[in-house]
């Protein structure tokens, strides 16, 4: 564990990621600041294409070859983006590790899972004997709630939830201080999701690791995280304590995400699924002004001239919306019965 230092475990400072594509420059991440402390779970929420997975890839400098990254990714105060190759290798796995999205495809189908978990261990502790490696594998599998015997299984012999546990066991193999989990429970059903989330939160509670968890499901993040950052079109639109961002969102986009996962038992949600019309903007052709304005139920003239900056609204709560607290504004009304995505089918 990290002692009380001034530098957080992970800090992103003014991070920009731009992809060079045939169709022009694609600005996937546009000036994101974010911090994760040891023992803390920070959630990043947003739709497909909001830049959240791109952001995760930069943490271990795993971004695609056509990406240009500027800003800083500070791991324990040292910039991962400019680090020497040898130092970066030490940070990967042992400092920070990633649980990738889609465990179902990330495991090698022709290797036993024990061998796959062993790979990073052998790479990072070359002198370790076979018996010790085997012991470590058993320990890791047990830690994620799998029978150590399963080390001999091939991926196809495991269920989706079990594969996801193997991915987590791998991520823990070298005792990292930071775990980045990219949609760790997407495609798992609700009971298995609960089991996997239990494993993750136990990890943070018992071993004091820091965790960055990426998901489109705000309700899962609200349950698990200490803080949530909501991203839209490559920028942070809201940041704050998890429960407050979910229950009482400041930004209209956070509000829409929150309403998309109805509370069972809430009479207002019966026969009234909430959605958000329209698509996120094409990151190659961002609109001027607030990039959410074209879909925003509260958009007004004032949103058009410039992209709003993150501003503080309450203790520990930030949002980037000029309409918050606007006296002429009506309270956020989330569209209950939405019009259809491409026009109203009446």
């Amino acid at each position, binding site marked *: 564990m990290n002692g009380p230092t001034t530098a957080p475990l992970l800090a992103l400072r003014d991070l920009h990621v731009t992809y060079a594509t045939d169709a022009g420059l694609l600005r996937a991440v546009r000036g994101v600041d974010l911090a994760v402390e040891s023992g803390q779970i920070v959630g990043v929420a947003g739709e497909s294409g909001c830049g959240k997975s791109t952001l995760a890839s930069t943490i271990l400098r795993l971004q695609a070859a056509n990406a240009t990254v500027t800003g800083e990714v500070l791991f324990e105060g040292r910039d991962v983006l400019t680090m020497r190759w040898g130092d970066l290798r030490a940070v990967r796995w042992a400092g920070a590790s990633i649980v990738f999205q889609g465990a179902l495809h990330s495991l090698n189908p022709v290797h036993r899972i024990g061998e796959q978990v062993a790979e990073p261990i052998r790479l990072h502790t070359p002198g370790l004997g076979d018996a010790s490696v085997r012991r470590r594998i058993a320990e890791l599998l047990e830690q994620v709630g799998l029978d150590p015997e399963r080390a001999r299984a091939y991926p196809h012999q495991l*269920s989706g939830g079990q594969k996801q546990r193997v991915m987590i066991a791998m991520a823990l193999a070298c005792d990292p201080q930071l775990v980045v989990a990219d949609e760790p429970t997407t495609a798992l059903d609700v009971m298995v999701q609960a089991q996997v989330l239990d494993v993750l939160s136990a990890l943070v509670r018992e071993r004091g690791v820091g965790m960055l968890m990426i998901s489109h499901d705000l309700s899962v993040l609200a349950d698990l995280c200490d803080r949530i950052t909501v991203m839209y079109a490559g920028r942070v639109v809201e940041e704050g304590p998890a429960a407050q961002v979910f229950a009482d969102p400041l930004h209209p986009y956070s509000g829409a995400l929150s309403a998309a996962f109805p509370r069972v038992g809430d009479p207002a949600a019966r026969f009234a*699924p909430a959605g958000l019309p329209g698509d996120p903007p094409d990151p190659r052709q961002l609109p001027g002004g607030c990039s959410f304005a074209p879909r925003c139920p509260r958009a007004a003239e004032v949103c058009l001239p410039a992209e709003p900056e993150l501003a503080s609204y309450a203790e520990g709560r930030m949002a980037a919306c000029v309409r918050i607290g606007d006296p002429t504004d009506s309270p956020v009304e989330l569209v209950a019965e939405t019009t259809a995505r491409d026009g109203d089918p009446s």
Partner: protein
Amino acid sequence: MTAELSAHGLRVEFATRTGRVARALDGADLIVRAGEVVALVGESGSGKTTLARALVGLLRPAAGEVRWDGRPMNRSARGLKALRRQVQLVLQDPLGALNPRHTVYESVAEGLRIHKTVAHSGRSETELVAQALASAGLRPPEALFLRYPHELSGGQRQRVLIAGALALQPQLLIADEPVSSLDASIRGEILALLLKLREELGLGVLVVTHDLGMAWNIADRIAVMYLGRVVEAGPTEDVLTSPRHPYTKALLSVVPEIEGLEPVVLRGEIPDPTRIPAGCRFHPRCPALASGEADAVADDCRGTRLAILSGEPEGHRCACHLVASREEAPHDPASRAAT
């Protein structure tokens, strides 16, 4: 009369490589009528997709029967074709379900051609395709005719699939996880579309899902499946706000949005359907049995089979020895009717 699709004591078996028989459905009863939205929920492996497929005749049951409008399903090629015009299956994963080399127009028109619907309707194929796309909320429809699936967003693809089903003017839609692969902001719109179709066309919808929040959003009734059987069924409000079966309670307790419920995370996964436990099929994972709460009926839980829950739409029913003992005799007669 109202169109009604029903399963009665349906059993579907698959041979496994080891020679044992996996019983994916083991006595499932369910009724879906035009004009209502029914949610079929459960974990992966509970048999919900198998039941949906058996209902449109894609699987042949080993026992029990499927009825359409009160008559046993006609399994001749012609009979199945007629059934599948009226009962349309909307598959999960819109990208996988659409032919990447077919335009939107082709995808929607395919069903019309197979069923030779154009000749009977007195309208042109183009009109029918346009109408179906418009009903699925894709407007203006002509703008999408020549687009390919890869050019569409996830929500649009799902709408194209729904349009393909609507083109045949079915009475029932069976939608398997219609929103699970979609982004949060699009989910609501697809669900709103299903409700709108029910409203405007009187369509019945069976949604197969593991998402209880979605069931709360749109379903009139809900049936909870476990290991090939419905274990609790009733009006959505009753089942989700006062669940009776320990399995339903556990499922609800782990839905992230629900506050105030102590999460009951069940260990492990649904057992292998080649070895359905004796007695109550849920007993090896049952938190009530494990905690001693069900001590009084523990012998029944471990050794006495439960009756198949009737699929009748009325009432809130549950297949559980503990619940039955608490309700005291005489039991809800409907839950005892079928054996």
